[in-house]
């Protein structure tokens, strides 16, 4: 048991943050014999699966399987910094948990209130950092976790995924206490985490490739979640994760979004780990997969080779064909293809007779799938629990916070037209010309031209128009007028029968009576228009000539067109759209374009009063400003500009500060002093 390295700094000791707690922080009760291999904390989790649960991660540090957590941050070089490249250290072999206790120095560095709760994200911020190489950037924190620690950190996270819903309450109380103790900070951290996820979503919608995403995740992580104290980072991550669960468990859509973002986050966190760590993790989860036997390998060798050759992209950093090929050989795992949907979808794996043969460096996918399905179940459970009992029980404490977060953080969904309450059919052409983003303008023109749109186009345009303020009656009249011009195809009777229904359906007047929300840029960018379809994001789905032609038709100058095309080529579709907005409206659009209806309302604002720009920023706008700044900042840094720390500071003070304050004010009511 290699005792954790020289941990100079006190902070590393995340695990045993039990300052006041029992002097004997460690493992409260020696792990039951049942699971000798696991960390004490794990055992506890298994029974009472809740992370935040006090008992399990008793302030008595048992929980924190992080004995070997090293922090390095350049800033105030604490003692720990001495060993910045903790990595070597980090790689200690996993130690039986029982040992953990011994390692804890008696002193408890971390502030009392922090509980070491769930650890899952810790690894990310930790190891990830140093791999990516943030050389030279000050202010960054590198937490280096030894393998065993990383594995242990992740393990309870999985295991404890709210398998047992009855424990939820405890979690809540627990997290609540934290929130109460440091309400302001508490709220801020949720914000940050939420923004972190949004940043990821943003990156995705820009069509970033995996390598870029990896960097993005790392940078965002540091931007949003950083804190000089690694223990707090872990803690923050844990708490915010669970609070966000509450926020995002409400509806199917929210769950879906949260699920995919958290899964992405998880994946990148895991990716930052070394293969050995990943493998160790897998072993700990006891995933029932085995390496393919030699005979099996022999029979699928040819296929494996072809798959390896078909990787245009290097696989986990190995770039020559030969190496990729070799990397199958140590031990390709044979798993049911259902377990690795993303590898299947991407054609990145060889499948034979229902089994996928995956390279060792693809196991991340396997674990992430597991994570996703656990989290998915937990979210549904959380929602059920929340609505049935907890909301009521927590009505004086957590509920207001969750609700405030719900309303302020999800961003506007544009389901209700806001400022410009109504538009009428007669104005629609003018409005389309002035204020529609390219995607909608294109659909609109195609509709006028062909008097028909296929389903995807009808949905995208129809919901957008609803968000813009077209009332149901007008919408029916509008679509009918168009469709019935194509008499051979759509007689008026036919329209009433088939299309009217779905229009009313969109307005929540039929069927399930859900008031559907207009599509966001992300939805549109990730849609897949097929033959005969005109929907989708022009910047993403059109060929270059067609984008050019469309822009030219709108009278955009050649120069601006080139700028837009430049963004398109770099797959920054939303930035392309933003530039187009700026070119058309002659003003800058700081927030960037995230939603066609936002484009519309921003454009209308510009038109209505060029002079009176929004006097008092509201939260939505702040949010947009915030994310766009963050993204710009990250883009900027990724390009390797030297002046990063300056701009970061500036960004932080100018933007983050106000934003956070507003947010907290809104969340907690005016009574809060900041």
């Amino acid at each position, binding site marked *: 048991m290699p005792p954790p390295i020289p941990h100079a700094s006190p902070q590393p000791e995340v695990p045993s943050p039990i300052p006041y707690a029992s002097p004997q922080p460690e493992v409260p009760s020696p792990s039951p014999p049942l699971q000798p291999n696991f960390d004490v904390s794990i055992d506890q989790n298994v029974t009472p699966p809740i992370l935040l649960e006090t008992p399990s991660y008793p302030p008595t540090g048992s929980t924190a399987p992080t004995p070997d957590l090293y922090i390095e941050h350049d800033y105030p070089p604490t003692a720990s910094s001495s060993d910045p490249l903790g990595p070597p250290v980090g790689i200690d072999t996993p130690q039986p948990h029982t040992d953990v206790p011994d390692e804890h120095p008696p002193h408890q560095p971390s502030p009392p209130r922090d509980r070491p709760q769930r650890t899952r994200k810790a690894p990310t911020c930790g190891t990830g950092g140093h791999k990516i190489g943030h050389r030279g950037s000050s202010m960054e924190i590198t937490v280096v976790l030894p393998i065993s620690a990383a594995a242990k950190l992740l393990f309870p996270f999985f295991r404890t995924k709210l398998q047992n819903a009855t424990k939820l309450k405890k979690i809540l109380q627990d997290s609540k206490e934290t929130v109460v103790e440091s309400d302001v900070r508490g709220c801020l951290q949720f914000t940050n985490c939420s923004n972190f996820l949004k940043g990821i979503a943003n990156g995705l919608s820009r069509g970033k490739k995996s390598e870029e995403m990896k960097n993005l995740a790392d940078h965002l992580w540091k931007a949003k979640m950083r804190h000089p104290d690694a223990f707090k980072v872990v803690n923050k991550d844990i708490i915010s994760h669970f609070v966000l669960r509450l926020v995002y468990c409400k509806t199917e859509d929210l769950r879906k979004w949260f699920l995919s973002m958290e899964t992405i986050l998880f994946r990148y966190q895991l990716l930052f780990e070394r293969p050995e760590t990943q493998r160790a993790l897998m072993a700990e989860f006891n995933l029932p997969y085995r390496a393919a036997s030699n005979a099996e390998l022999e029979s699928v060798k*040819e*296929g494996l080779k*072809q*798959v390896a*050759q*078909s*990787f*245009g*992209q290097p696989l986990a950093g190995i770039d020559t064909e030969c190496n990729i090929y070799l990397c199958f050989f140590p031990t390709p795992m044979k798993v049911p*293809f*259902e377990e690795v*949907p*993303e590898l*299947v*979808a*991407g*054609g990145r794996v*060889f*499948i*034979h*007779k*229902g*089994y996928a043969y995956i390279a060792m460096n693809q196991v991340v996918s396997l674990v992430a799938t597991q994570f*996703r*399905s656990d989290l998915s179940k937990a979210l*549904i459970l959380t929602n*059920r629990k929340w*609505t*049935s009992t907890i909301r009521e029980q927590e009505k004086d404490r957590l509920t207001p916070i969750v609700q405030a977060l719900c309303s302020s953080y999800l961003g506007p969904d544009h389901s209700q037209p806001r400022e410009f309450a109504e538009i009428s059919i007669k104005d629609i052409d003018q409005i389309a010309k002035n204020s529609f983003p390219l995607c909608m303008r*294109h659909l609109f023109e195609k509709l006028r031209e062909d008097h028909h749109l*296929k*389903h995807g186009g009808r949905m995208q345009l129809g919901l957008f128009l609803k968000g813009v303020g077209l009332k149901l009656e007008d919408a029916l009249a509008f679509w009918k007028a168009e469709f019935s011009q194509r008499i051979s*195809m*759509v007689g008026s009777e*036919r329209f009433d*029968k*088939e299309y009217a*229904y*779905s229009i009313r*359906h969109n307005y929540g007047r*039929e*069927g*399930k009576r859900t008031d559907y929300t207009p599509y966001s840029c992300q939805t549109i960018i990730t849609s*897949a*228009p*097929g*033959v*005969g*379809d*005109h929907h*989708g994001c*022009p910047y993403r*789905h*059109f*060929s270059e000539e*067609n984008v050019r032609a469309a822009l030219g038709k709108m009278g955009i100058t050649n120069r601006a067109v080139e700028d837009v095309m430049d963004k398109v080529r770099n797959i920054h579709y939303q930035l392309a759209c933003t530039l187009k907005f700026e070119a058309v409206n002659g003003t800058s659009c700081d927030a960037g374009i995230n939603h066609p209806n936002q484009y519309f309302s921003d454009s209308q604002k510009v038109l209505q009063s060029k002079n009176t720009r929004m006097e008092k920023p509201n939260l939505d706008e702040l949010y947009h400003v915030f994310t766009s700044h963050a993204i710009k900042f990250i883009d900027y840094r990724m390009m390797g500009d030297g002046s990063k720390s300056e701009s970061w500071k500036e960004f932080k003070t100018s933007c983050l500060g106000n934003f956070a304050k507003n947010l907290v004010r809104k969340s907690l009511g005016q009574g809060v002093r900041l």
Partner: protein
Amino acid sequence: MTKEEIENGTADMEIDQRELMNGDRSELNAVPDGFNANYLKVYYGKLFPHADIFKWMSYGNDGKHPGCDESYFGRREFSFTLDNDIYLRFQSFNSASQLENSIKEKCPFKIDIGPVYSVDPAKRHAYAQSGNNVFTPVEKELVFDIDMTDYDDVRYCCSGADVCLKCWTLMTIAIKVIDPALRDDFGFNHILWVYSGRRGVHCWVCDPKARRLTNEQRSSIAEYFRVYKGNENSQKKVSLTSSALHPFLLRSYKVLEEFFEGNLLSNQSLFSTEERYEKILEMIPDESITSELRGKWQDNKKSSISKENINVDRWKHVKKILKSGKQKAPGLGKCVEEIVFSFSYPRLDMEVSKHMNHLLKAPFCIHPKTGRVCVPIDPNRCEEFDPTAVPTLSKLLEEINMGGLGTDDDEWDRTSLGKSIRFFRSSFLQPLLKSCKEEIENSYNAKLQHSKTSLTW
């Protein structure tokens, strides 16, 4: 069924809206002289294989084995489209006779099959009141829907809802690409291909594993098959980025190439006119090559090359120049494959496959526009399938009339539908039920074993 239920019907509807929409295009040609409710009544009364559908959808849970789940069939959603487009969703039946009686009574123009839910879909409202969201789909065959209208940019013989033997080749190719992949790659065994009644094919994958796939897993399979990514506003429909093809695509390419060169080239006359070959030249991102080819072909126009060979010859030119290896731009070699994929690779309706709660028309329905029966297609002999020779409702009725009075039970056997029903039973249903029984038996034994061992504790 109350009015409200009817409305609710379309509630979470994942019904194929495209189907409805494309309906617009059905020019007048399709309606056979004789599709009407009365004919349909006779069909449901004498020919429709109710019992086979019931056996299939029960998957061995027929109450005969102590290990079977008797509620299984009753949790399956059926939905009926009645005359006048009245749509009844969430129908469920507890027995073969209930199913049969309801079909005979309502005489639906179309029967769709939905998922098996966690609870009886007809009683979903009662469960909804308990507050917990227990009404959720739990099983559904993995289905694929391939529709000829999605190929309109690569077929010149017909368009929209029309099909002929020339373009039907595209469906044959689709079966020949998808079917082996489902079997060899994904390891599925119980696969049913069905003619959709007008211009496409449906595929039902019925292995237990397939029925239990999550939406995400379904998506991943659909994505695995998705190569074609074009839309109206981009020229390049297929993009093969990597340097080598994935083994599945490599295998598929052999099929595609054979049909493309041996059939589509000349049957669709892909290079016969300037407009057509320009479409192909657009896919080659190298000006010098395209102008060289263009020049060659324009000169050739008046020369004596026979019409039949013109497509084949010009394709040879393309191949020769692209594969010669002289070009500087890397990736040009891929162009040949890209062209072949663009013109022949199956185009799946992704949404149908991705979601468990998407409904799909039941086999052996009659397509109301063509009057044709949705008969199974033998994937091993799909080249021989001729959509224009599929029995129609009126033809079947004629055959019944000619047959005179027979025993009611197997009247179908004497009509041209007999062949299809026999094929359905012998190639699909029997092997399926056999393996279902085995599965039930095994899990039952395992359970017994388990309870025994736990008793000894």
